[in-house]
């Protein structure tokens, strides 16, 4: 048997591609460690609800999780801010570059280690698409748009941009969008929306999205981490980096395929928001970042660090 046998819970159901990629990561870890580490990957809600995995990893019920930190915004707003800095990233690779080489991972660890977790590495799911039944060709088109927004910064930023955010749980999105209770939804990636048939009534998907890029934090119980030998630590870190790039590439590939399929349907109009409109939205978002920065020391630190990075790279 393996020296280390762990259970990690994810934030997806089993069918989603992210889940398969996470399972491959576990397989890679096993191969690379010569069978010394065996990780079981479980779907969302398998052991505890999605918003309780932080506590479960800390308590040692789970040994780790691969999840969107926004679920823990209620514990510390920094989770929401790092987990999904709305409007900041034009591409998941920018986000990964920032996290790995420009201090993001360190700030996240500063946040999460007191809870008894250690961030092995960051990944991202790719820019989400915004399924909408009304065309969004400019930021002005957001005015009065009834848009489903969950926890985190999304709600306030869309509110600032003139939209009418509706706080609705994920399980109600499909029917509500179909029947017209809401006009648009901050939901998930294009390919998944297409597969679920969302575009048959949300005919104006905004893609590539301009709003949301959720982080996937790959974290482990800190006590376990501290007790690991250096070779296994390195294997975990390197394998997470590799998974992060794989996730970007594979999800993009899948989106491209789905976009091609959607384009064949004359009823669906995929709208790519022009660069100047994206800039407008980012500026609105930045005002909200400033509000969040003032919430505590870590949100301030993250804000300073991210804006420095964005400025250095001419993105702001």
């Amino acid at each position, binding site marked *: 048997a393996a020296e280390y046998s762990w*259970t990690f819970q994810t934030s997806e*159901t*089993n*069918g*989603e591609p992210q889940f398969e990629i996470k399972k491959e990561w576990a397989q890679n870890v096993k191969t690379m460690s010569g069978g010394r580490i065996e990780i*079981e990957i*479980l*779907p969302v*809600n*398998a*052991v*505890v*609800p999605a918003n*309780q995995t932080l*506590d*479960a990893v800390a*308590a*040692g*019920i*789970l040994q780790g999780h691969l999840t969107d930190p926004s679920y823990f915004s209620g514990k510390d707003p920094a989770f929401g801010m790092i987990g999904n800095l709305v409007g900041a990233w034009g591409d998941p690779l920018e986000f990964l570059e920032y996290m790995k080489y420009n201090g993001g991972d360190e700030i996240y660890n500063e946040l999460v280690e007191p809870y008894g977790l250690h961030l092995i590495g960051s990944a991202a799911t790719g820019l989400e698409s915004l399924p909408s039944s009304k065309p969004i060709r400019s930021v002005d088109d957001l005015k009065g748009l009834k848009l489903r927004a969950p926890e985190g910064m999304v709600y306030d930023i869309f509110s600032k941009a003139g939209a009418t955010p509706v706080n*609705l*749980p994920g*399980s*109600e999105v*499909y*029917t*509500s969008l*179909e*029947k*017209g*209770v809401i006009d648009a939804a901050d939901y998930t990636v294009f390919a*998944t929306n297409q*597969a*679920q*048939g969302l575009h*048959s009534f949300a005919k104006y998907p905004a893609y590539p999205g301009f709003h949301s890029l959720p982080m996937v934090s790959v974290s482990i119980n800190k006590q376990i981490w501290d007790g690991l030998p250096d070779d296994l630590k390195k294997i975990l870190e390197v394998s997470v980096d590799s998974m992060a790039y794989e996730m970007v590439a594979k999800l993009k590939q899948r989106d491209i395929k789905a976009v091609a399929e959607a384009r064949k349907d004359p009823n669906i109009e995929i709208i790519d928001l022009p660069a100047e409109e994206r800039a407008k939205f980012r500026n609105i978002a930045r005002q909200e970042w400033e509000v969040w920065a003032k919430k505590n020391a870590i949100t301030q630190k993250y804000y300073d660090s991210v804006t420095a990075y964005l400025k250095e790279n001419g993105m702001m």
Partner: protein
Amino acid sequence: MGGLGLNAMGIEYGTYLLIGGIFGLLLTGLPLAFVTGLVALIFTFGWFGPNALPLITSRVYGFITEYSLVAVPMFVFMASLLDRSGIAKDLFNSMRILAGRLPGGVAVQTLVVAFLLAAMSGIIGGEIVLLGLLALPQMLRLGYDRSIAIGVVCAGGSLGTMIPPSIVLIIYGLIASVSIADTFAAAVTPGTILMLSYVAYVLFRCLRNPELGPPLPERDRLPAKERLVVIATGLFWPVIIIGIVLGTIYGGIASVTEAAAMGVVGVLLAIVVRGEFSPKLLQQSVQHTIDTCGMIIWIGVGAAILVGVYNLMGGNRFVSATILGLDAAPWVIIVVMMVILGVLGLFLDWIGIAMLALPIFVPIIVQLGYDPVWFGVLFAINMQVSFLSPPFGPAAFYLKGVAPKEISLQNIFMALIPFICIQVAVLALIIAFPEVSMWILR
């Protein structure tokens, strides 16, 4: 983590012990909610140790904050209000007139009402409580056979997850990554067939023996004009209320859950207009709602805890290995999957089954070349069975919560047997002839 060493027995024997433990505890007469909860608690402690115990309350937290369950108390509230007003009695009086000389006619109409309710809700629970409070006492009052009346309420009230909107199919669509619209469409025909089969069964029984569903006696027959008045009076408010709920959903005014709240307002409005409103009526209704909810929700709580522990024990790997170990023809694998779903359905609630089994089954189905949408329909029908099958039949529990005292849980489960047989027959039909459900997508 060190437990009491229970984990040394391995997942296979662990599974048997877990099931055995549930059956053993059931027999003692311990409340069902505590049976599953206690077994889960013992396994958590014994397998993983005391540090893992917060898992249990974490599951409780997740379960009771589940948004889709918000509709349950709303429906129960609606039912309690209707029960205390004269609306239900008027409705069933007019249904009795409508049924006329047809034996079992009121039961048939109850099934039609259940079908309409199914289009108003995406879960089960609320509808069964609603029908259990309204239709069951009325059918018994009209001299209907108890078993038929119980079966109609439970089987009909379960249709909510077969007819769109359906949370079961939405969750299936998410897990299987297939179009939710397609699963909705594909489920409509089998759902209708289920309803019609229940109707056929009721008519078959009642035509052979009219005492099971007494037709309107000659002395109660009314002149045509009076008949119309009675029918119109009885149907007026129910039609308005159903219209409000369906209208708010299909008109895009409210989400499925909010529509249940709109229904409550509709009922309150009707009660006020009819001059039946009093603060006491409202107090009694909310009181009845919280009593009923406490009872039915805690059974779900117990099952939810159990699923979490079993998953952590590696239960899903065990089930997966068992299936993959089979070397058989594709259709045999389908049947085996159905049997496993059926067995899981004896103990777990549908969400637990979906979380446990679907991640394993769906990839295999796709690999075998079957359409996952079709399998989604099979899953939904299977869940219909699980709602009724003992020892954990949520439909039976929901009904027990509101049924007259003299009806025991055993009475209910006995009454459900023919309806379970019908469900299994429809399941077999859809397995043998997939086109019966899939034609709509061609």
